[in-house]
Structure formats: structure tokens, C-alpha cells
């Protein structure tokens, strides 16, 4: 099992994510350079946090054109697991691998703090080590994390159980106050329809060691490891996915 963490110019959680996967969870992990066209045979691609291309123009807007993103898109189409954290989530939105967009936080301020998120869908490859309704304490650090999608898309997300995490209070209630960045429906993380691509704003790599104050983020990586162990890298032939996209 091998993880690949993509390094864009301006990525700044790349080292942290590698540290969590390689040093804490003891999984083979490589850095994938954004200018390459080679995924080095990884079983899971992680797009880390940071400010790829300085977030100039719009978070993720330039990063989506990095050469490696063609391979990542094909990999995702073929059912490969892709996890986008923070800036990685924003890039997945720009790539169109996940629906919706990010607005500036409602207070128009960068926010770095611990938040609580509730597991909405425990039956994904990214949450199978968690329980439905489980509350995780995990940090966020972003300026553009205010999730937005048009009503039709939002309805579809809900219908397909694509919302994976929502901001909540310590008791798991979806309050306005807990929704610090103003996201629609308190959305903190979503998956694609096929379930192999997930993006979330909170940083699991910052909550993977006791010394950092929380290990709640580790379960997300552990879920991925479990999934990869059980079912191998890709679950479906590429052709089927393409057909679905063509419709």
C-alpha cells in the first residue's frame, strides 16, 4: 500500500501529511511533484493543504492546470481514492471532481482553531473506522472554507448521502455558532457520487498525535488504510465510470 502526497508550488501541509502517513501511521508514502506525469503506482492520492500557486486568482484555480492533475483525474475516474484536505479540497472543487465552490469565511477572516465535526456518512472508504454521528475534534485553518452549492446540487448531495462531515458543537448539534465559516448546511466534507473522492476543510494530519492535542483525525487515515487493505486499489473498471460521466 502506497500513498502519494502531491506537492504544488505553495503547498505547505505536504510535509505534515507525509509525516502523519509515514511516521505516525507507518505507511509507505511518496511526494508526487506537480509537474510530473507519474503517479508512481500509488494506491491513494492526497492533495494536501496550503496555498498552491499562492491561491492567486482563486484558491485551487491555477493548481488544477498542473500537469499531474491529468493523471489524478484519470486515477479518480478509474476509482482510485483521492483525498483533498483544505486547499486540496478547494483544488478538487476546481477540478470538478467534487461539486460546489468555496466562498470566503462569513466573517471575512482567516480562521485557525479546533472545531467539532460530525460523521454524517460512516459507510465510505474514508470513514469506515468511525461511527455515524461520532463527533471529532479537529483543527481548521483557512480563509475560503465557506462551502457553497446551488440548491439543486445541495439536494442531490443530501439525497446521495454525499455529505461526509458537518460542523457541529461538542455535543454533535448542528448549530449556527458551530458553523464558523458559514458553510451551507454546515458542510465540512463531501464525497463524489462514486465515493472514491473526498474533500474536507479540517486537517486530519494536525489531529493524529496525542502531543498535538487530538488524535481524532487519525481515524480518517485509518479508514483509508482499512479500505485499501480490504478491497485493493481501484474498485471498478474505468469504462463504467466514463459511461456514467457521458450521460
Amino acid at each position, binding site marked *: 500500500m502506497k500513498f502519494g502526497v502531491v506537492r504544488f*508550488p*505553495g503547498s*505547505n*501541509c505536504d*510535509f*505534515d501529511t507525509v*509525516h*502523519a502517513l509515514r*511516521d505516525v501511521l507507518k505507511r509507505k508514502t511518496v511526494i508526487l511533484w506537480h*509537474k510530473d506525469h507519474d503517479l508512481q503506482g500509488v494506491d491513494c492520492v492526497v492533495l494536501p*493543504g*496550503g*496555498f498552491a*500557486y*499562492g*491561491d*492567486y486568482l482563486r484558491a485551487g484555480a491555477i493548481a488544477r492546470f498542473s500537469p499531474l492533475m491529468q493523471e489524478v483525474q484519470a486515477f479518480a475516474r478509474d476509482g482510485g481514492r483521492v483525498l483533498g484536505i483544505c486547499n486540496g479540497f478547494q483544488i478538487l472543487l476546481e477540478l470538478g471532481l467534487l461539486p460546489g465552490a468555496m466562498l470566503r469565511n462569513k466573517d471575512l*477572516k*482567516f*480562521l*485557525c*482553531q479546533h472545531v467539532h465535526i460530525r460523521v454524517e456518512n460512516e459507510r465510505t472508504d474514508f470513514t469506515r473506522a468511525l461511527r455515524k454521528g461520532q463527533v471529532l475534534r479537529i*483543527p481548521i*485553518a483557512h*480563509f475560503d472554507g465557506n462551502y457553497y452549492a446551488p440548491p439543486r446540487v445541495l439536494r442531490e448531495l443530501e439525497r446521495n448521502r454525499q455529505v461526509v462531515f458537518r460542523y457541529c458543537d461538542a455535543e454533535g448539534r448542528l448549530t449556527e455558532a458551530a458553523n464558523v465559516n458559514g458553510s451551507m448546511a454546515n458542510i465540512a466534507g463531501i464525497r463524489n457520487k462514486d465515493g472514491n473522492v473526498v474533500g474536507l476543510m479540517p*486537517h486530519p*494530519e*494536525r489531529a493524529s*498525535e496525542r*502531543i*498535538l*492535542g487530538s488524535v481524532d483525525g487519525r481515524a480518517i487515515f485509518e479508514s483509508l488504510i482499512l479500505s485499501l487493505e480490504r478491497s485493493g486499489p481501484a474498485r471498478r473498471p474505468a469504462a463504467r465510470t466514463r459511461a456514467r460521466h457521458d450521460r
Partner: protein
Amino acid sequence: MIDKSVLDQHNLTEDEYRLIVELIGKEPNLTELGIFSVMWSEHCGYKSSRVHLKKLPTEGPRVVQGPGENAGVLDIGDGQVVVFKIESHNHPSFIEPYQGAATGVGGILRDIFTMGARPIAVLDSLRFGPPDDPKNRSIMEGVVSGIAGYGNSIGVPTVGGEVYFDPCYELNPLVNVFCLGLADRDKIFLAKAEGAGNKVLYVGAKTGRDGIHGATMASAEFGKETEHKRPNVQVGDPFKEKLLLEACLEVMDRSLIVGIQDMGAAGLTCSTTEMAAKGGMGIDVDLDKVPQREAGMTPYEILLSESQERMLMVATPENVPAVQEVFAKWDLDAPVIGEVVAGGRARMTFRGEVVVDIPVDAVVNLCPAYDRPIAPPPPPPPAPALADLPLPDDLGEALLKVLGSPTIADKQWVFRQYDHMVQVNTVFLPGADAALLRIKGSKKALAVTLDGNSLYTRLDPRTGARIAAAEACRNLAVVGARPIGVTNCLNFGNPEKPEVMGQFEQAVTGMAEACRTFGIPVTGGNVSFYNDTEGLSIHPTPVLGVVGLLDDIGKAVSPGFKAAGDDVILIGESFEELGGTEYLKTVHGLEAGAPPAIDLELEKRTQEYLLETIDTGLLRSAHDLSEGGLAVALAESAFHSDRKLGCEVDLDGELRADALLFGESQSRVVVTCRKADAAGLLRLASRRGVPAKLIGRVGGRDIALGRGGRDLLRVPVERAFRVWKDSLPAFFKVPA
């Protein structure tokens, strides 16, 4: 051609001009004059401060690099070093708060990675006018978002610092930025141009007209016309700097270069001449090869530009292609613009003509040092006799007032705008006595703090500076970290005013005395004079950045109460010291009196005692007493406890109640321990000559302080917490 008005524009005196002519053996042309004006500015040349700074201790067993390089370097064992420095960006931050603060961060980061270290933490000391004035708020918002915008993007956590408010900073806010880096000892690089024939490479952003004369601007007083100086403020590009950081660390890691220097104040001028001077060499530069952002720039503008995110490197000719390849990978150009030559002269050509030809030694090392006239510092406004000072009817209300004062109130409004967790080393979040960072792959940790109470230094510069050093070290000791080195940022008014020089001289003396007593070297820093706007000087504000080392991070102690039933011990003695206190300022509206006294030897014993007891694992929490005294320290320990535990404290003695609760006597710390350990801790304190007394117990929902069994104040933790927590954000609420 060069007359009095030209000299005035360059902030040079006629005596200085005569000295330049003598040193270079000719009348300088305008470009050469420009070079001298920035290199001999107060900011770069330290001409008013040098004679005094010599008093500071700079040596110690851990010192790898003391003052004189881009940053200080200390050995922390296991082949690793820390690289750290503090710098001011006060003037630019007043003129253009966002960019001023942002480029302050950018500049200090370059100072650190220039030496081969990866920056792992930023802390800032910020001083503004009171936040009830919208102008002050707007400066503060700009500064905080500027620091956030730059630091967050580049991925270096801003892990702590301090924010003070006082009317003296209204027209002259202070933005002091500290950065800490970590490196392998054998991978440290210096700003030296060595080896004739080696190539000089320019890397990073193109040169534009921004920031010309920034260093000269920082070396003069401000008047009402400062708005016009906005073009002197540089504009930062954190993305470019991130690329530069990664590329520079890569070429250094692969040992592809000989020397490297960032282009900070005085840009290309400073980097070329300093590198040559330090290497004992000369340098030839072809200014046409310097990448330029704008057409038609003159040699004067190219040399004096302070465009950000630029570095100068020296590499052997064989290594040039490999260096350029690394930079190309990061989408950066690295053209060769010159060569290291023998002879000690800087020779610059532009369109085939020699436009600069001067000895580097004169520029870099022969800037005159002034022993400026000194007058006694202005005396403090006398404090009213304590007998005349009314005791508040309700001491609980007084506590709430002090907790809600912007200087003491919770700063999360500030800190949550900074990414303080990136790099996953941050163990204590901002708000603790010191920031605590683990060192990956070891049990060790680094603790860092910034400190300086400028009201104390205003009232008594020498005592104030001693306290600044003492308190900074105490902040580390309460965490369990031994202080190992200091960097300082000395913010003062106009040094041409004898009483300002008097404050400076006294403050440096006090700081030197304290650092000597504590055995910690000062490895560098920054002096910021001319913090005067419209003729008014700021409080003298020496800020110390102190780095501490813990051998075992598992033993680190945090300020929050841990468990109900734990004993509360007050270490240190309380006196009737209300002068210069936050209580006197907020409750009685007075900035007056003498600051608390400090006994440096007692302070040292106290810190040694803390380190010893923390090492044995006996302390459950420890929190330094500073602004707001005992009552505020206890309240903060309650706020920092996970379950908002209160405390019941019973004191004795004859002090006035307000002095007992809010006095700021030095060398005091509140610690808690298991009941069973208290007796042993008190015994050890008495053996070590440290006053200590059991004063109460953790528990309940109130912060309760009494004397002889009678309550002096009793406030619910939750209520006090809300006041402390909501104070600062309330100033910034957008009306609905």
C-alpha cells in the same frame, strides 16, 4: 552637484559627507552617495546604538553565531542548531499596515532561511493605540491580516507573541516580528562572498521601484506628511517567497553554493557590499543583468530598491548550472549578475559605464559611531500616595475591569487569524506563557516567548529592561524550559534627543545586567530609533525574544489548573507595588509611580527552582504573575483549565487589598500540585532560598480570593471568562 539639500534628502550630515570623501578618495556620484546613505543610515549602521550595545553579553557555550550575521545561532545538541532573530517593521506598518506587517514577516523569514535553517515559528510583539479609536483598530486589523496573509501562505506557524495597547502608540504602532529556524549544525551558511572568480547570482523577484529609501525612512521622525511615503513601503508576495525558501534550502542542502545573503533593507546595495566585506573580497556587478520589473530604472534605483523576495548567492562557476536547475524547478530565474574579485572594491557597471567604484570596507565597516549626548530620562509622573488612592468598593468588579482591559483580555481574535499549527509542532497553542514546539524525531522541545512591558521602561528604563529579561526567562521556566539565548528589538524615540538616548542607555544597561545574571547570551537583534511622530516619542520599548530548551517534552507544564483539590502555592513575595500596574492604569486611569523592584539573584533562584521542580514532575500547572498580578494570574489559570476550574485562595499579611490582588511584584509564580506534594515543594523552596507559601486549593466554580477567612473578591469563573474572552472581539463587531 551634491549640496546641502541633496545631503538632507539622504539624511546625511556634512561631517558624514566629508568622511565619505576622505574614505573613498573622491567626491561620490549620486549613486555612490545613495549607497552610503542607506548603509550609513541608523537602521543599517547602528550609529547611535553601537557604543551601548557593546555592553550586552554575547558569548556562551552554545553560541555558534553571535551578532553580526543575519541571525543568531545556538547549538541545541544532537547536531542541531536554532537560528533566530527579531526585527521591527514599525514605520512601514504605520504608513501601510497590511503590507508593512506582511513584508516584516517576509524579511525576518529570509534572515532565517538565508542561514540554511527552515523557519519553524513566528511570534510578533504588537503595540497599538487603544482599540476604542477606529483609526487604531484599522491599523491593528491591517497589521494582523498582513501577518496572517504572509505567514499563513508561506506555511510558517505564528505561534504566539504579545499585543499591548497604549495611547503612546497611536501614531507610531510597533510591529516586531521574531522568527525561529531549525537546522543541522554543519549546514549553516554565512553571508560571505569568497573565492575570486566565483559567480554572483541574483535569485527571486524582479527589482522594481518599490521601497527605495525604506531604510532611510526608518531612520527619521515622522510628521504629517507621512502619507506621501506610502510608495516607500514594499509589497510582499508570500508565494514567491515560499518558492524562494524551498529553492534556497535545496541548494544549501546540496551544498551547491558558497555564500548567501538576503536583500532586505538597502536591497542589492547591502547584500553585495556586505558579502564582499565579510569575505574580504571585492565584487563586480553588471547592473544590466539585474532582472527588472520596470523599464528605465536608473542604477541608483536598481541599487536602492527594496523590492521583496530577492536573494544574492555566490557559487563556484562549475556549480552555477546546478543551482540554476534547482531554481528553474521552482519556476525562478537565477541569472549571474557579477563576480567575486580580489581587491576589496565594489564596481558596478551600467550600459557599459562604471557607475559605482568604492571600497566595500568604507561602506560596510566604517560607518561612524556616535556617542550621542545623554540626559536623564524624563521622570515618571509621581503616583499619588497610596493613602490618597481610593480602594475600589467592589474588588470583584475591579478584577473584571482589569480582565477586560485590551492589554490583558484574551487575544484569540488575533491568534485565530494566524495559522499557528502548520508544520505540526505546536504543542501549546497561543495564550500560554510561552509557545512550545516539539522537535520531531526527539524528546526535546523548544519554548519561545516575547516580552517587554513598556510602561515599566517608561517609568524606569533600567528596571523596566531588567524586568523584561526576567519575565521573558520566567515565561520559559514556568513551562520547564531553560533559557538559552536572547534576541532583542529596541524600539525608542529620536536618538538625537538626549533624554531618549538616556532611556536607551539605561535600558541597555538593565538588559545587560539581567542577561549576565541569567547567563544567557544576546545573539543579535535590531534597534529601531526615531519612533516619534509629530514630535512625540513612544514609551521606550525594549522587546526580548528568548528561546528555551526542554530535554523532555513529556515534562512540560501548562498554565491551566488540572484537578480539583490540588494545592495552590504562590512562589515569591508580594509587596505594596502598584506603580506602573495595569490595575492603576485601568481602574484609576494612572500611568504613574515607580515600577516594581526586581532582585535579579532572587529571580534566578526562582527560575532554577521552577526548572528543578518541573523536572521532578511535581508541578501540575505553573503560571507567571505579570500584568494584573495575582488575581489575574489565578483567573487565567482557571480559563486555561479544561473544565474551567476555579480556586479558593486565602492570603495573609498587611498589604492593601488592591496591592495584594493586583500588585505586580516580580519573581512570582502560581503553581499547583497534588496535595501530597505540597509540603515537599515548600521545603525545597526554603532550601533554595525561594519564598513560597501555600495559599489555597483548586476547585469550585468561582475565582475566590480572601484574607484571614474573609472574601476580598469572589467572581464566577464563567462570568470572568466571558469578560476576558469577549472584550477584544467587541471592538471589532460590525454593527448589525
